[in-house]
């Protein structure tokens, strides 16, 4: 255990630097400093060569391997990276908020002329936290104390930092609440977090964070846990507050669409290092680091339907091991030999843009040019697939008047309320909606996970599958329908080996002739999903999220099903891995003639993979249409709001986009009851007569 030593002493004593090393550091600093004139304001915070180590289960993990970054006054800096890249940890060092087992081992953190790395006491940090640098966390549901009123929680900051009286603080709090767009702030002051929706709570969290007018506001994925429509509103709020209060905002996110929306400057982080830095246009228009490039290219928005997405191979590296060369090299198909030998230094692209890749070395100029040329050709050669032909399509699944009820705290809650739709053989139908809309429930009702609380009828190949079934029927169904789950961490049994997990279905119905046969089946399916047979004797915890999701897919496919319910299979995955899984699903669909019910909240990926899209809102399907039709002519106001909120990884379009707001109160269903109507062939909508009239006019 570490006894009470001076914190400064924790900085590991390292060997004296060689002249070469000193020169490299000097060079790096020079390049980073070059952008200074291009910023609007003063440099507020300056991190140089920050290294953070964690002691995790006895092993040493280097989470940040020397990150340098500046925060300038009045700007929004986005730090982009996937989970484990260290973006969160890095910003936590600005507040002295590292977990107990973590410590800064090297580097400097300059803020107001003081090196915060040398802070030893709580008092020193208390002057910074909340007052100068504030932070907003990812999950608004857990960031607020559930048993204290939100007013108290904001007022307490004001009282604490400015020593104001309770009444003054209260007045100020109410003002703040109004400022973050909370209606009736006096009344809301006295309410508890439980009485607020997620978006509202995040507004409260933001109000708390800005209560002391901090110079820097760090937003750690503030919108990830929110629904798309709410996310866009919160982003707008942060942007307007930033302008109003002239704060610097450090925005941590994995979502490039969000980056395009909010950021002035972008830093891309990978494996504990900032690999590329530039202003938002530099990064989106001319990315230089292979990782940034790959990330942008693998976005489904940029893919061509029917073709494989550009995908990044493999998984991020383990930070327990010492990384030699470019951390991204093992996953980079076009890596050069030097990438494996030596860590690339920073190369400037322009005064505002630098990247940490050997490609920018003058020596690699030829190789780089060749790559650019090849990629351009590749992109041009992709031919979009023709839309699914519904004329002769057979119905595989018909859902009629499906309702699912749950008992919540004594009252009955209809999660799904009278839903009807068909799924045709060979198509991908996507079900899109916000959390709590009932989309997963529909999938589970079809899968017969819910049985007792389900009303209505589901037919599979013309046979009714709701209600009681015989053992044989169940067996048949299990062979024909399978499911892929959202959370690869939760959907694999941690205590079973991959071998068992994948062959569970085989065991259940004894679908193998001999042990050798079973092993062969397992190995063949694993290789189909891109995993080797040697993985069978391992436990799930030895795999990364993408790999685990592929194991989950293998588990379902080994039953040789016709129909797959994919319940948000990519939403819990890192950006760099999503494309792999999307490609895999598409490949399987082609090879095995599968039909998918694809459940998602992320419209961008949905457009790429689905033939038809159904939009669900609060248990009702509100609109269903072929994918392109829906994107081109959304009718239902909710669909429109949803589409308008989708972030697009292009700073130009993203800045100018207009949000459409949806308010369910706009429908007057008191007399004129809504129905599920096919307004044009293949385009269904949930509306009453009056609304239908309006929609018809809109189409024509």
């Amino acid at each position, binding site marked *: 255990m570490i006894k009470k030593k001076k914190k400064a002493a924790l900085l590991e004593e390292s060997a004296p630097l060689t002249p070469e090393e000193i020169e490299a550091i000097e060079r790096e600093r020079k390049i980073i400093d070059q952008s200074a004139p291009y910023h609007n304001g003063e440099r507020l915070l300056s991190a140089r060569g920050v290294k953070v180590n964690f002691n995790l289960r006895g092993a040493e993990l280097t989470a940040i391997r020397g990150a340098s970054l500046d925060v300038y006054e009045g700007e929004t800096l986005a730090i982009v990276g996937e989970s484990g890249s260290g973006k969160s940890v890095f910003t936590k060092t600005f507040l002295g908020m590292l977990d107990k087992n973590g410590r800064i081992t090297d580097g400097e953190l300059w803020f107001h002329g003081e090196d915060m790395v040398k802070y030893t006491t709580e008092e020193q940090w208390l002057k910074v936290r*909340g007052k100068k640098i504030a932070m907003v966390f990812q999950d608004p549901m857990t960031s607020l104390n559930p048993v204290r009123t939100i007013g108290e929680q904001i007022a307490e900051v004001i009282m*604490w930092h400015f020593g104001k009286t309770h009444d003054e603080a209260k007045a100020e709090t109410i003002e703040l609440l109004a400022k973050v767009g909370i209606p009736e702030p006096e009344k809301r002051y006295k309410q*508890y977090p*439980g009485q607020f929706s997620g978006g509202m709570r995040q507004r409260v969290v933001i109000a708390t964070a800005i209560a002391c007018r901090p110079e820097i506001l760090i937003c750690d994925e503030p919108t990830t846990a929110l629904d798309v429509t709410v996310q866009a509103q919160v982003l707008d709020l942060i942007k307007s507050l930033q302008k109003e209060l002239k704060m610097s905002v450090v925005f941590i996110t994995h979502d490039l669409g969000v980056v395009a929306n909010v950021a002035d400057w972008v830093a891309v982080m990978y494996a504990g290092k900032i690999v590329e830095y530039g202003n938002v246009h530099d990064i989106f228009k001319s990315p230089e680091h292979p990782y940034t490039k790959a990330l942008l290219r693998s976005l489904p928005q940029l893919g061509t339907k029917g073709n494989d997405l550009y995908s990044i191979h493999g998984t991020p590296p383990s930070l327990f091991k010492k990384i030699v060369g470019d951390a991204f090299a093992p996953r980079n198909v076009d890596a050069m030999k030097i990438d494996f030998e030596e860590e690339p230094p920073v190369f400037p692209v322009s005064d505002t843009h630098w990247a940490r890749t050997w490609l920018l070395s003058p020596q690699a100029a030829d190789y780089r040019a060749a790559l650019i040329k090849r990629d351009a050709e590749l992109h041009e050669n992709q031919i979009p697939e023709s839309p699914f032909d519904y004329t002769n399509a057979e119905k595989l699944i018909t859902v009629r008047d499906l309702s699912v009820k749950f008992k919540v705290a004594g009252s009955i809650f209809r999660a799904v309320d009278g839903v009807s739709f068909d799924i045709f053989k060979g198509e991908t139908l996507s079900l899109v909606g916000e959390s709590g809309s009932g989309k997963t429930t529909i999938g589970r009702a079809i899968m017969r996970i819910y049985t007792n609380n389900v009303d209505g009828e589901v037919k599979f190949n013309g046979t009714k599958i709701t209600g009681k079934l015989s053992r044989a029927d169940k067996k048949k169904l299990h062979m024909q329908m399978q499911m892929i789950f959202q959370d690869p961490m939760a959907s694999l049994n941690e205590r079973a080996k991959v071998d068992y997990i994948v062959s569970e279905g085989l065991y259940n119905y004894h679908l193998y002739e001999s042990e050798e046969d079973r092993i062969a089946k397992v190995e063949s399916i694993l290789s189909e999903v891109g995993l080797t047979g040697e993985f069978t004797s391992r436990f799930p915890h030895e795999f990364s999220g993408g790999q685990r999701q592929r194991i989950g897919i293998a588990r379902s496919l080994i039953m040789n099903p016709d129909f797959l319910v994919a319940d948000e299979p990519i939403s819990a995955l890192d950006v760099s891995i999503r494309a792999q899984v999307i490609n895999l699903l598409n490949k399987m669909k082609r090879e095995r003639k599968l039909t998918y019910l694809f459940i998602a909240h992320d419209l961008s990926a949905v457009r790429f993979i689905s033939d038809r899209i159904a939009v669900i809102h609060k248990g009702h399907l509100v609109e269903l249409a072929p994918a392109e039709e829906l994107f081109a002519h959304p009718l239902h106001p909710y669909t429109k709001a949803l589409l308008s909120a989708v972030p697009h990884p292009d700073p130009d379009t993203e800045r100018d986009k207009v949000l459409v707001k949806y308010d369910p109160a706009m429908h007057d269903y008191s007399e004129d009851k809504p129905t599920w109507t096919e307004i044009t062939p293949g385009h269904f909508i949930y509306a009453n007569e009056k609304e239908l009239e309006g929609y018809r006019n809109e189409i024509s």
Partner: protein
Amino acid sequence: MTKYILKRLLRSLITIAIVFVVVFMLLRFMPLNGYFPDEMIKETDEQTRMAYLRNLGLLDHPIVQLGRFVKNLFKGDLGRSITVYPKVPITTLLAEKIPVTAFLGFWSMLLGIVAGLAMGLMMVRFRDRAGDTLGNGYIMIIRAVPSLLYLFFIQVQISKWFNLPMVYYDDKPLSWLLPIISLALSSIAWYALWLRRFMVDEENQDYVKFATVKGLSKSAVLKKHIFRNAIIPLSAYLPADLLNIISGSLVIETLYAIPGTGGLLTTAIKQQDNNLVQILVLMYAVMSILGVFLGDILLTFVDPRIKLAD
């Protein structure tokens, strides 16, 4: 809300009724000999004994006895003790004994809560340091070592060292000290243990990290957020604790010769004092079920999360 409370109340009543009937019938399976004092068996012939039983109404069918009991109960007549305190009305007994036990119980509960919460706070404040180790050691000893051992030790040795009375006197406040402390020992451990556990749980919550990021000092966070949230689940046990002060402790009341309710049930069962057992069981069942029920109700008042779920 009212509907929910009524439903809960009804369920509680059914449970109490079942508990009571089960105990009532179990008692009727006991051998008849148990109703006689030792001298009586030695001194009397069978005829006399049967006469005695008949006079007590014990030879009637159990259902008849149950009916009679319930009827009397509604009339407010709890009956008289049979063997433990022959002929003494049970109301008199309870009126004599409950105040004594409840008095000591109340102070020990207060001591238990105050000292327990203080200890829990100390353990969290000095987590993984001496204070924590000390508290954990105390909890471990209280929970692992059979209570008889240390209670006995306190009565014999501690009383000697501090020159305190060895038994309870209702007119000597000094003699209340050891029984109250002895009674409180386990609840101190209980409160400390759970407060610590809940606080450690709360410590890992996001809102605590957020409060720290807000710039609140460690002790402010501990006080305003962690402690405040951690005592909410503990408060659910308050009504049960409060009701429980009348049940007393068999061991402590025996050691200190406290004329309370502690050993009453055990003695009554062993001596087959049906009337007394029935009333006591009824009382304890009502108490414990009511305690849980009131705890739930209380929770809806102190925890805003629960009100919302309804």
